[in-house]
Protein backbone atom coordinates (compact mmCIF):
# COMPACT_ATOMS: atom_id res chain seq x y z
CA UNK A 1 0.00 0.00 0.00
CA UNK A 2 2.82 2.36 0.99
CA UNK A 3 4.75 1.42 -2.14
CA UNK A 4 1.72 2.14 -4.30
CA UNK A 5 1.29 5.49 -2.59
CA UNK A 6 4.93 6.44 -3.24
CA UNK A 7 4.71 5.31 -6.87
CA UNK A 8 1.60 7.41 -7.47
CA UNK A 9 3.16 10.35 -5.63
CA UNK A 10 6.36 10.19 -7.68
CA UNK A 11 4.32 9.86 -10.89
CA UNK A 12 2.28 12.92 -9.94
CA UNK A 13 5.43 14.87 -9.09
CA UNK A 14 7.13 13.92 -12.35
CA UNK A 15 4.03 15.03 -14.26
CA UNK A 16 4.13 18.33 -12.37
CA UNK A 17 7.83 18.77 -13.19
CA UNK A 18 7.13 18.03 -16.87
CA UNK A 19 4.24 20.48 -16.89
CA UNK A 20 6.35 23.23 -15.36
CA UNK A 21 9.16 22.53 -17.84
CA UNK A 22 6.73 23.06 -20.72
CA UNK A 23 5.51 26.35 -19.27
CA UNK A 24 8.52 28.20 -20.71
CA UNK A 25 7.54 27.85 -24.38
CA UNK A 26 6.44 31.47 -24.61
CA UNK A 27 9.61 32.75 -22.93
CA UNK A 28 11.70 30.73 -25.40
CA UNK A 29 9.78 32.22 -28.28
CA UNK A 30 10.25 35.73 -26.92
CA UNK A 31 14.01 35.18 -26.58
CA UNK A 32 14.32 33.82 -30.13
CA UNK A 33 12.25 36.69 -31.47
CA UNK A 34 14.44 39.20 -29.67
CA UNK A 35 17.51 37.59 -31.26
CA UNK A 36 15.82 37.78 -34.68
CA UNK A 37 14.99 41.47 -34.26
CA UNK A 38 18.48 42.12 -33.05
CA UNK A 39 19.80 40.42 -36.20
CA UNK A 40 17.47 42.54 -38.32
CA UNK A 41 18.59 45.80 -36.79
CA UNK A 42 22.26 45.02 -36.23
CA UNK A 43 24.54 47.37 -38.12
CA UNK A 44 27.55 45.09 -37.74
CA UNK A 45 26.30 42.41 -40.13
CA UNK A 46 26.72 42.20 -43.87
CA UNK A 47 23.75 41.49 -46.17
CA UNK A 48 24.62 37.81 -46.77
CA UNK A 49 25.39 37.06 -43.18
CA UNK A 50 22.22 38.80 -42.02
CA UNK A 51 20.18 36.81 -44.55
CA UNK A 52 21.73 33.49 -43.46
CA UNK A 53 21.19 34.26 -39.79
CA UNK A 54 17.60 35.37 -40.40
CA UNK A 55 16.83 32.12 -42.23
CA UNK A 56 18.30 29.98 -39.45
CA UNK A 57 16.51 31.94 -36.74
CA UNK A 58 13.32 31.94 -38.84
CA UNK A 59 13.23 28.11 -38.92
CA UNK A 60 13.70 27.95 -35.17
CA UNK A 61 11.06 30.63 -34.76
CA UNK A 62 8.51 28.64 -36.78
CA UNK A 63 8.99 25.65 -34.47
CA UNK A 64 8.82 27.79 -31.35
CA UNK A 65 5.68 29.56 -32.56
CA UNK A 66 4.03 26.20 -33.19
CA UNK A 67 5.06 25.03 -29.73
CA UNK A 68 3.43 28.10 -28.18
CA UNK A 69 0.24 27.78 -30.23
CA UNK A 70 -0.03 24.09 -29.33
CA UNK A 71 0.83 24.63 -25.66
CA UNK A 72 -2.31 23.66 -23.71
CA UNK A 73 -0.91 25.12 -20.48
CA UNK A 74 -1.24 28.63 -21.96
CA UNK A 75 -4.97 28.28 -22.65
CA UNK A 76 -6.72 30.89 -20.51
CA UNK A 77 -3.54 31.58 -18.52
CA UNK A 78 -4.24 35.14 -17.53
CA UNK A 79 -0.74 36.57 -17.08
CA UNK A 80 0.62 39.80 -18.53
CA UNK A 81 3.08 37.88 -20.71
CA UNK A 82 0.40 35.66 -22.24
CA UNK A 83 -2.04 38.58 -22.62
CA UNK A 84 0.63 40.67 -24.40
CA UNK A 85 1.63 37.74 -26.61
CA UNK A 86 -1.86 37.10 -27.91
CA UNK A 87 -2.86 40.77 -28.19
CA UNK A 88 -0.86 41.08 -31.39
CA UNK A 89 -0.59 37.91 -33.47
CA UNK A 90 1.43 39.66 -36.20
CA UNK A 91 4.21 40.61 -33.84
CA UNK A 92 4.28 37.51 -31.64
CA UNK A 93 3.97 34.88 -34.34
CA UNK A 94 6.16 36.76 -36.70
CA UNK A 95 7.29 33.86 -38.89
CA UNK A 96 3.80 32.46 -39.52
CA UNK A 97 2.25 35.88 -40.03
CA UNK A 98 4.95 36.93 -42.50
CA UNK A 99 4.52 33.80 -44.63
CA UNK A 100 0.74 34.16 -44.39
CA UNK A 101 1.00 37.66 -45.84
CA UNK A 102 3.73 36.79 -48.37
CA UNK A 103 6.25 39.15 -46.87
CA UNK A 104 9.78 38.73 -45.64
CA UNK A 105 10.31 38.61 -41.91
CA UNK A 106 11.93 42.03 -41.83
CA UNK A 107 9.27 43.68 -43.98
CA UNK A 108 6.54 42.18 -41.90
CA UNK A 109 8.07 43.26 -38.61
CA UNK A 110 8.78 46.80 -39.80
CA UNK A 111 5.26 47.05 -41.15
CA UNK A 112 3.79 45.75 -37.91
CA UNK A 113 5.61 48.36 -35.84
CA UNK A 114 4.49 51.06 -38.26
CA UNK A 115 7.67 51.57 -40.29
CA UNK A 116 6.83 51.41 -44.00
CA UNK A 117 8.76 52.95 -46.90
CA UNK A 118 6.05 55.56 -47.23
CA UNK A 119 6.19 56.58 -43.56
CA UNK A 120 9.99 56.76 -43.72
CA UNK A 121 9.85 59.01 -46.78
CA UNK A 122 7.28 61.20 -45.10
CA UNK A 123 9.37 61.52 -41.97
CA UNK A 124 11.29 64.74 -41.41
CA UNK A 125 14.21 65.43 -39.18
CA UNK A 126 13.55 67.70 -36.24
CA UNK A 127 14.17 68.46 -32.60
CA UNK A 128 12.02 66.74 -30.00
Amino acid sequence: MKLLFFISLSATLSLFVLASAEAGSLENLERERAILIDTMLSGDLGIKERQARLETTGTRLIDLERMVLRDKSLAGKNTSLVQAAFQNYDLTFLAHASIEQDRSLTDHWLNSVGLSTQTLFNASMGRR
Partner: protein
Amino acid sequence: MNNLYIDPDPEQTKRIHDRLKSIFIAIFLGAVLACLISIPFAYATTAVWAPTASERLIKLPGQHLEKAVESDFRKSELATALEETEANSQLKQSTLGDLQKAIEQADGETRVELQHQFLLEKKNYVEMLKENQDLRRKRARIKLRLYERLLGKLSRKKQAGSPQQKHLVSLQENAQARFQSSLSKVDMKLMQSVAMGTSRYSQEYARNMSAIESLVAAVNAHPSNQAPALNGIALSQSDYLRSLISRNEAELALVDQERIILAHMAKLISLDALALSEETQLASQDLDAPSDDVPRSYVVEYFINQ
Protein backbone atom coordinates in the same frame (compact mmCIF):
# COMPACT_ATOMS: atom_id res chain seq x y z
CA MET B 1 -67.17 -6.50 55.66
CA ASN B 2 -67.69 -10.08 54.68
CA ASN B 3 -71.31 -9.36 53.84
CA LEU B 4 -70.20 -6.91 51.16
CA TYR B 5 -68.01 -9.41 49.34
CA ILE B 6 -69.53 -10.47 46.06
CA ASP B 7 -68.38 -13.72 44.59
CA PRO B 8 -67.24 -12.89 40.99
CA ASP B 9 -69.06 -14.58 38.18
CA PRO B 10 -66.28 -16.19 36.02
CA GLU B 11 -68.26 -15.80 32.82
CA GLN B 12 -68.90 -12.13 33.46
CA THR B 13 -65.24 -11.55 34.32
CA LYS B 14 -64.18 -13.18 31.08
CA ARG B 15 -66.65 -11.05 29.17
CA ILE B 16 -65.29 -7.86 30.74
CA HIS B 17 -61.78 -9.01 30.10
CA ASP B 18 -62.52 -9.65 26.40
CA ARG B 19 -64.25 -6.33 26.03
CA LEU B 20 -61.40 -4.43 27.64
CA LYS B 21 -58.89 -6.27 25.51
CA SER B 22 -60.65 -5.45 22.25
CA ILE B 23 -61.15 -1.82 23.24
CA PHE B 24 -57.53 -1.55 24.20
CA ILE B 25 -56.39 -3.01 20.86
CA ALA B 26 -58.71 -0.70 18.92
CA ILE B 27 -57.49 2.37 20.78
CA PHE B 28 -53.88 1.30 20.44
CA LEU B 29 -54.12 0.60 16.72
CA GLY B 30 -56.09 3.76 16.08
CA ALA B 31 -53.57 5.91 17.94
CA VAL B 32 -50.57 4.29 16.28
CA LEU B 33 -51.99 4.45 12.78
CA ALA B 34 -53.22 8.01 13.18
CA CYS B 35 -49.68 9.12 14.00
CA LEU B 36 -48.10 6.87 11.38
CA ILE B 37 -47.49 9.55 8.79
CA SER B 38 -45.76 11.99 11.10
CA ILE B 39 -43.60 9.61 13.14
CA PRO B 40 -39.96 9.64 12.08
CA PHE B 41 -38.58 6.13 11.89
CA ALA B 42 -35.29 4.91 13.18
CA TYR B 43 -33.75 3.88 9.85
CA ALA B 44 -34.92 6.93 7.96
CA THR B 45 -33.18 9.24 10.40
CA THR B 46 -30.07 7.25 11.23
CA ALA B 47 -29.17 5.62 7.90
CA VAL B 48 -26.86 7.99 6.08
CA TRP B 49 -25.35 8.41 2.64
CA ALA B 50 -23.28 11.49 1.94
CA PRO B 51 -21.89 11.44 -1.61
CA THR B 52 -19.65 14.31 -2.70
CA ALA B 53 -19.96 16.14 -6.02
CA SER B 54 -16.31 15.74 -6.92
CA GLU B 55 -14.45 16.70 -10.09
CA ARG B 56 -13.82 12.99 -10.66
CA LEU B 57 -17.55 12.41 -11.12
CA ILE B 58 -17.84 15.16 -13.73
CA LYS B 59 -14.93 13.75 -15.68
CA LEU B 60 -16.32 10.21 -15.79
CA PRO B 61 -17.21 9.15 -19.33
CA GLY B 62 -20.70 8.31 -20.52
CA GLN B 63 -23.02 6.49 -18.19
CA HIS B 64 -20.25 5.71 -15.73
CA LEU B 65 -21.39 8.69 -13.65
CA GLU B 66 -24.65 7.01 -12.68
CA LYS B 67 -22.88 3.68 -12.11
CA ALA B 68 -20.31 5.34 -9.83
CA VAL B 69 -23.08 7.04 -7.83
CA GLU B 70 -25.01 3.77 -7.55
CA SER B 71 -21.87 1.90 -6.49
CA ASP B 72 -21.17 4.52 -3.81
CA PHE B 73 -24.78 4.25 -2.64
CA ARG B 74 -24.58 0.46 -2.32
CA LYS B 75 -21.70 0.81 0.11
CA SER B 76 -23.69 3.18 2.34
CA GLU B 77 -25.74 2.56 5.49
CA LEU B 78 -28.79 3.85 3.66
CA ALA B 79 -28.56 1.05 1.08
CA THR B 80 -28.22 -1.56 3.83
CA ALA B 81 -31.25 -0.14 5.64
CA LEU B 82 -33.26 -0.06 2.41
CA GLU B 83 -32.42 -3.67 1.60
CA GLU B 84 -33.29 -4.69 5.14
CA THR B 85 -36.70 -3.02 5.10
CA GLU B 86 -37.45 -4.54 1.69
CA ALA B 87 -36.55 -8.03 2.91
CA ASN B 88 -38.56 -7.51 6.11
CA SER B 89 -41.64 -6.34 4.24
CA GLN B 90 -41.40 -9.41 1.97
CA LEU B 91 -41.33 -11.63 5.04
CA LYS B 92 -44.22 -9.73 6.57
CA GLN B 93 -46.23 -10.25 3.38
CA SER B 94 -45.85 -14.02 3.69
CA THR B 95 -46.77 -13.84 7.39
CA LEU B 96 -49.93 -11.95 6.48
CA GLY B 97 -50.79 -14.58 3.86
CA ASP B 98 -50.35 -17.36 6.39
CA LEU B 99 -52.46 -15.57 8.97
CA GLN B 100 -55.26 -14.95 6.50
CA LYS B 101 -55.36 -18.64 5.62
CA ALA B 102 -55.42 -19.53 9.31
CA ILE B 103 -58.30 -17.12 9.95
CA GLU B 104 -60.33 -18.73 7.18
CA GLN B 105 -59.93 -22.11 8.83
CA ALA B 106 -60.39 -21.02 12.46
CA ASP B 107 -63.58 -20.19 14.33
CA GLY B 108 -64.72 -18.95 17.69
CA GLU B 109 -62.25 -17.40 20.07
CA THR B 110 -59.22 -18.58 18.10
CA ARG B 111 -60.55 -16.74 15.07
CA VAL B 112 -60.89 -13.53 17.06
CA GLU B 113 -57.39 -14.00 18.45
CA LEU B 114 -56.05 -14.57 14.94
CA GLN B 115 -57.90 -11.51 13.67
CA HIS B 116 -56.24 -9.44 16.39
CA GLN B 117 -52.92 -10.89 15.38
CA PHE B 118 -53.67 -10.19 11.72
CA LEU B 119 -54.44 -6.55 12.48
CA LEU B 120 -51.22 -6.16 14.46
CA GLU B 121 -49.22 -7.71 11.64
CA LYS B 122 -50.91 -5.44 9.10
CA LYS B 123 -50.02 -2.47 11.28
CA ASN B 124 -46.38 -3.63 11.36
CA TYR B 125 -46.44 -4.14 7.60
CA VAL B 126 -47.71 -0.61 7.01
CA GLU B 127 -44.98 0.70 9.32
CA MET B 128 -42.37 -1.17 7.31
CA LEU B 129 -43.72 0.18 4.05
CA LYS B 130 -43.63 3.66 5.52
CA GLU B 131 -40.05 3.14 6.58
CA ASN B 132 -39.15 1.84 3.13
CA GLN B 133 -40.80 4.87 1.51
CA ASP B 134 -38.89 7.22 3.79
CA LEU B 135 -35.62 5.59 2.82
CA ARG B 136 -36.47 5.68 -0.89
CA ARG B 137 -37.43 9.33 -0.59
CA LYS B 138 -34.16 10.04 1.21
CA ARG B 139 -32.17 8.26 -1.51
CA ALA B 140 -33.98 10.17 -4.27
CA ARG B 141 -33.45 13.50 -2.47
CA ILE B 142 -29.74 12.86 -1.94
CA LYS B 143 -29.29 11.81 -5.56
CA LEU B 144 -31.25 14.85 -6.71
CA ARG B 145 -29.08 17.21 -4.64
CA LEU B 146 -25.93 15.49 -5.91
CA TYR B 147 -26.89 15.77 -9.58
CA GLU B 148 -27.97 19.39 -9.11
CA ARG B 149 -24.62 20.20 -7.50
CA LEU B 150 -22.78 18.46 -10.36
CA LEU B 151 -24.82 20.37 -12.93
CA GLY B 152 -24.08 23.62 -11.11
CA LYS B 153 -20.40 22.82 -11.04
CA LEU B 154 -20.43 21.97 -14.74
CA SER B 155 -22.12 25.22 -15.73
CA ARG B 156 -19.82 27.23 -13.42
CA LYS B 157 -16.87 25.54 -15.07
CA LYS B 158 -18.16 26.54 -18.50
CA GLN B 159 -18.74 30.16 -17.46
CA ALA B 160 -15.57 30.35 -15.39
CA GLY B 161 -13.16 33.25 -15.70
CA SER B 162 -13.03 37.00 -15.47
CA PRO B 163 -13.83 39.19 -18.50
CA GLN B 164 -10.08 39.56 -19.06
CA GLN B 165 -9.63 35.81 -19.10
CA LYS B 166 -12.56 35.38 -21.47
CA HIS B 167 -11.02 37.99 -23.74
CA LEU B 168 -7.72 36.11 -23.63
CA VAL B 169 -9.44 32.85 -24.51
CA SER B 170 -11.12 34.47 -27.51
CA LEU B 171 -7.76 35.92 -28.61
CA GLN B 172 -6.20 32.51 -28.31
CA GLU B 173 -9.02 30.97 -30.33
CA ASN B 174 -8.54 33.56 -33.05
CA ALA B 175 -4.78 32.95 -33.04
CA GLN B 176 -5.39 29.22 -33.28
CA ALA B 177 -7.75 29.67 -36.23
CA ARG B 178 -5.29 31.94 -38.02
CA PHE B 179 -2.44 29.51 -37.32
CA GLN B 180 -4.43 26.54 -38.68
CA SER B 181 -5.32 28.44 -41.85
CA SER B 182 -1.71 29.40 -42.51
CA LEU B 183 -0.19 26.06 -41.48
CA SER B 184 -0.11 24.45 -44.92
CA LYS B 185 1.24 27.62 -46.51
CA VAL B 186 4.09 27.74 -43.99
CA ASP B 187 4.81 24.04 -44.57
CA MET B 188 4.98 24.61 -48.32
CA LYS B 189 7.36 27.50 -47.80
CA LEU B 190 9.55 25.31 -45.59
CA MET B 191 9.65 22.54 -48.18
CA GLN B 192 10.55 24.97 -50.97
CA SER B 193 13.32 26.57 -48.99
CA VAL B 194 16.56 24.63 -49.19
CA ALA B 195 18.09 26.56 -46.35
CA MET B 196 15.13 26.23 -43.99
CA GLY B 197 14.03 22.62 -44.59
CA THR B 198 11.77 20.62 -42.29
CA SER B 199 12.92 20.69 -38.70
CA ARG B 200 13.27 17.70 -36.39
CA TYR B 201 10.44 19.09 -34.29
CA SER B 202 8.07 19.17 -37.29
CA GLN B 203 8.95 15.61 -38.33
CA GLU B 204 8.61 14.19 -34.83
CA TYR B 205 5.47 16.20 -34.21
CA ALA B 206 3.82 14.85 -37.36
CA ARG B 207 4.74 11.27 -36.42
CA ASN B 208 3.49 11.65 -32.86
CA MET B 209 0.37 13.38 -34.07
CA SER B 210 -0.60 10.42 -36.26
CA ALA B 211 -0.07 8.10 -33.27
CA ILE B 212 -2.20 10.39 -31.07
CA GLU B 213 -4.95 10.53 -33.69
CA SER B 214 -5.15 6.75 -33.92
CA LEU B 215 -5.23 6.49 -30.13
CA VAL B 216 -7.96 9.15 -29.89
CA ALA B 217 -9.98 7.23 -32.48
CA ALA B 218 -9.59 4.05 -30.40
CA VAL B 219 -10.62 5.91 -27.24
CA ASN B 220 -13.70 7.34 -28.97
CA ALA B 221 -14.69 3.94 -30.34
CA HIS B 222 -14.25 2.20 -26.99
CA PRO B 223 -17.60 0.86 -25.70
CA SER B 224 -16.95 2.22 -22.21
CA ASN B 225 -16.57 5.69 -23.61
CA GLN B 226 -19.91 5.81 -25.40
CA ALA B 227 -21.82 8.98 -24.70
CA PRO B 228 -25.22 8.45 -23.05
CA ALA B 229 -28.03 8.57 -25.56
CA LEU B 230 -31.77 9.17 -25.45
CA ASN B 231 -33.80 7.63 -28.29
CA GLY B 232 -30.58 7.17 -30.26
CA ILE B 233 -29.51 10.81 -29.86
CA ALA B 234 -26.26 11.36 -27.99
CA LEU B 235 -26.65 13.54 -24.90
CA SER B 236 -24.21 16.12 -23.66
CA GLN B 237 -23.06 15.81 -20.06
CA SER B 238 -25.36 18.59 -18.86
CA ASP B 239 -28.32 17.03 -20.74
CA TYR B 240 -27.49 13.70 -19.17
CA LEU B 241 -27.36 15.24 -15.69
CA ARG B 242 -30.69 16.95 -16.32
CA SER B 243 -32.24 13.60 -17.34
CA LEU B 244 -30.93 12.05 -14.09
CA ILE B 245 -32.42 14.95 -12.13
CA SER B 246 -35.82 14.48 -13.75
CA ARG B 247 -35.66 10.73 -13.10
CA ASN B 248 -35.15 11.39 -9.39
CA GLU B 249 -37.90 14.01 -9.37
CA ALA B 250 -40.19 11.33 -10.79
CA GLU B 251 -39.10 8.91 -8.06
CA LEU B 252 -39.97 11.52 -5.42
CA ALA B 253 -43.37 12.15 -6.98
CA LEU B 254 -44.10 8.41 -7.04
CA VAL B 255 -43.10 8.00 -3.41
CA ASP B 256 -45.49 10.83 -2.54
CA GLN B 257 -48.26 9.06 -4.41
CA GLU B 258 -47.46 5.78 -2.65
CA ARG B 259 -47.78 7.66 0.63
CA ILE B 260 -51.46 8.18 -0.17
CA ILE B 261 -51.88 4.43 -0.75
CA LEU B 262 -50.26 3.83 2.63
CA ALA B 263 -52.53 6.35 4.33
CA HIS B 264 -55.59 4.53 2.95
CA MET B 265 -54.19 1.20 4.10
CA ALA B 266 -53.66 2.64 7.58
CA LYS B 267 -57.20 3.98 7.64
CA LEU B 268 -58.57 0.58 6.63
CA ILE B 269 -56.62 -1.12 9.42
CA SER B 270 -58.03 1.38 11.88
CA LEU B 271 -61.58 0.71 10.64
CA ASP B 272 -60.98 -3.05 10.79
CA ALA B 273 -59.78 -2.69 14.36
CA LEU B 274 -62.86 -0.70 15.23
CA ALA B 275 -65.15 -3.25 13.57
CA LEU B 276 -63.41 -6.11 15.37
CA SER B 277 -63.71 -4.29 18.65
CA GLU B 278 -67.44 -3.76 18.15
CA GLU B 279 -67.89 -7.36 17.03
CA THR B 280 -66.18 -8.72 20.17
CA GLN B 281 -68.11 -6.34 22.37
CA LEU B 282 -71.43 -7.39 20.90
CA ALA B 283 -70.53 -11.07 21.10
CA SER B 284 -69.56 -10.75 24.75
CA GLN B 285 -72.87 -9.09 25.54
CA ASP B 286 -74.68 -12.12 24.03
CA LEU B 287 -77.63 -10.19 22.64
CA ASP B 288 -79.29 -13.32 21.30
CA ALA B 289 -79.72 -14.71 24.82
CA PRO B 290 -83.14 -14.22 26.47
CA SER B 291 -83.48 -10.93 28.23
CA ASP B 292 -82.57 -10.81 31.91
CA ASP B 293 -85.51 -8.52 32.57
CA VAL B 294 -87.75 -10.08 35.24
CA PRO B 295 -91.46 -9.45 34.71
CA ARG B 296 -92.49 -6.79 37.06
CA SER B 297 -94.91 -8.04 39.72
CA TYR B 298 -96.81 -5.65 41.88
CA VAL B 299 -97.29 -6.91 45.47
CA VAL B 300 -100.90 -5.96 45.51
CA GLU B 301 -101.65 -8.27 48.48
CA TYR B 302 -99.89 -5.87 50.83
CA PHE B 303 -102.33 -3.29 49.91
CA ILE B 304 -105.57 -5.28 49.95
CA ASN B 305 -105.16 -7.52 53.04
CA GLN B 306 -105.24 -4.85 55.67
